[in-house]
């Protein structure tokens, strides 16, 4: 088998996607108009498929901070955090994140992906076991694989499935890391973190929560689901990203364990990459301040979430029953989902189309997300489009 034959599967997937009326992986945002609108195929559409939950991408404070930093500190650091890539802003951001969580240690990474890779790679080795939710993000699995730890999956959001596996691990359970997310990004379901935290305590294991999608939306100051469910003190490591609610790019890990301060000596994804640019750090620091003070933003995002969830539920579409700013509409038929998604885009609504194998539970998902910046009119328009397309395709209750 030749080296390049490895691409046969990718080639066949590419052909399949290019055969669709609009390739969902090839959408280009020709011009960004606002946090909620963009020009796609020459037409202004409502963005209902971003991760811009607090709508901060056009925040004047964040933009001004970025510009000031660009002008005074240049475009990039050109180096690793371990060499010439640590500026005072990086340390300030780490201090502010630690302060936000009232935990003593925090580390900033160049992306959310590298935060997960870097945390697992430093924390685990081949002597450790990991129990990971079967629907956890790819970056968490990649980090585990990089570490060499033994990886066991448990059923998605199922505490009894986790407990059975903790029991089977016996004495190894006390050096086992349990890995879950707060809010899951496809269907918008939340982890039963209280139950997971209780199990972690009972078996003397460790708990890591990825708050990538829950940061900004849940808990006091937007700290995430672990805070909202009052289990921060039982959580050993929180990881998160700046590229969703905070509207920039980068990631972090925060912990009560002093060993986090030693990660930088062993975490390859932290060491062998350039540090985030000063402008990104400056904008992120402004965004964190706005997130902390952002109860009004959370209120807007949640009102939009409940309104859109209610509208889609009333049509009879297959949704997770509890509203969140991520609303995944499940379809048994991939073809119907593709058709639905295409008509949505033609009607001026951009959403995310998730096809197998990325869609959990088989079938396909149209993922909608709302932001604090969506207007009531925009949310109503999204709901109305879903209703008319569901009717057209014979999917609504009334059909």
């Amino acid at each position, binding site marked *: 088998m030749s080296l390049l034959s490895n691409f046969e599967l990718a080639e066949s997937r590419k052909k399949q996607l290019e055969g669709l009326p609009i390739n969902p992986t090839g959408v280009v945002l020709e011009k960004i108009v606002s946090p909620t609108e963009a020009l796609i195929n020459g037409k202004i559409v409502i963005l209902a498929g971003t991760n811009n939950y607090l709508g901060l991408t056009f925040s004047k404070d964040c933009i001004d901070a970025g510009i000031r930093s660009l002008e005074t500190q240049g475009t990039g650091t050109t180096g690793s955090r371990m060499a010439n890539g640590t500026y005072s802003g990086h340390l300030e951001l780490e201090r502010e994140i630690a302060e936000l969580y009232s935990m003593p240690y925090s580390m900033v990474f160049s992306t959310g992906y590298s935060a997960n890779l870097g945390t697992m790679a430093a924390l685990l080795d081949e002597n450790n076991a990991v129990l990971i939710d*079967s*629907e956890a993000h790819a970056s968490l699995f990649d980090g585990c*694989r990089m570490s060499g730890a*033994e*990886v*066991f*999956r*448990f*059923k998605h959001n199922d505490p009894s*499935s986790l407990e*059975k*596996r903790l029991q*089977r*691990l016996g004495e190894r359970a006390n050096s086992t890391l349990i890995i879950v997310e707060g809010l899951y990004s496809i269907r918008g379901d939340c982890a039963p973190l209280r139950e997971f935290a209780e199990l972690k305590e009972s078996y003397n294991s460790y708990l890591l929560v990825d708050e990538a999608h829950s940061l900004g939306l849940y808990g006091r100051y937007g700290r995430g689901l672990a805070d909202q469910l009052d289990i921060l003190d039982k959580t050993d490591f929180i990881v998160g990203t700046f590229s969703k609610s905070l509207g920039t790019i980068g990631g972090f890990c925060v912990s009560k364990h002093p060993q986090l301060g030693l990660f930088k000596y062993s975490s390859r994804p932290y060491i062998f990459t350039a540090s985030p640019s000063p402008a990104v750090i400056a904008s992120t620091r402004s965004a964190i301040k706005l997130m902390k003070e952002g109860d009004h933003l959370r209120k807007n995002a949640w009102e939009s979430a409940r309104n859109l969830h209610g509208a889609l539920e009333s049509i009879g579409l297959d949704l997770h029953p509890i509203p969140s700013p991520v609303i995944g509409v499940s379809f048994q038929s991939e073809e119907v989902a593709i058709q639905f998604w295409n008509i949505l885009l033609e009607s001026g609504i951009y959403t995310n189309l998730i096809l*197998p*194998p990325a*869609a*959990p*539970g*088989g079938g396909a998902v149209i993922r909608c997300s709302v932001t604090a910046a969506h207007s009531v009119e925009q949310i109503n328009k999204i709901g109305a489009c879903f209703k008319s397309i569901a009717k057209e395709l014979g999917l609504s209750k009334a059909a």
Partner: protein
Amino acid sequence: MELAEITKTVISLARKVDEKNITLTPESALVADLGLESVQIIEFLCEVEDHFDIVIGEDSLADVVTVSDLAELVYHLSREKKL
């Protein structure tokens, strides 16, 4: 439990997720023949783990292609647990 009995049990567990309703044999390939999506594979493996009261690490699945491969893995993990 002997290997033959484990193989029979794995086949009966696989039947529950076999949407194509094919005739399953020890040589049936879990992905190619059953046509399972990755999520269904995970659900199926969780059922196998729960039935035999074992845990199956991701690395040990690298060489598992057929029902028979999985049954052999289960057999070894079950024996290790007893030792």
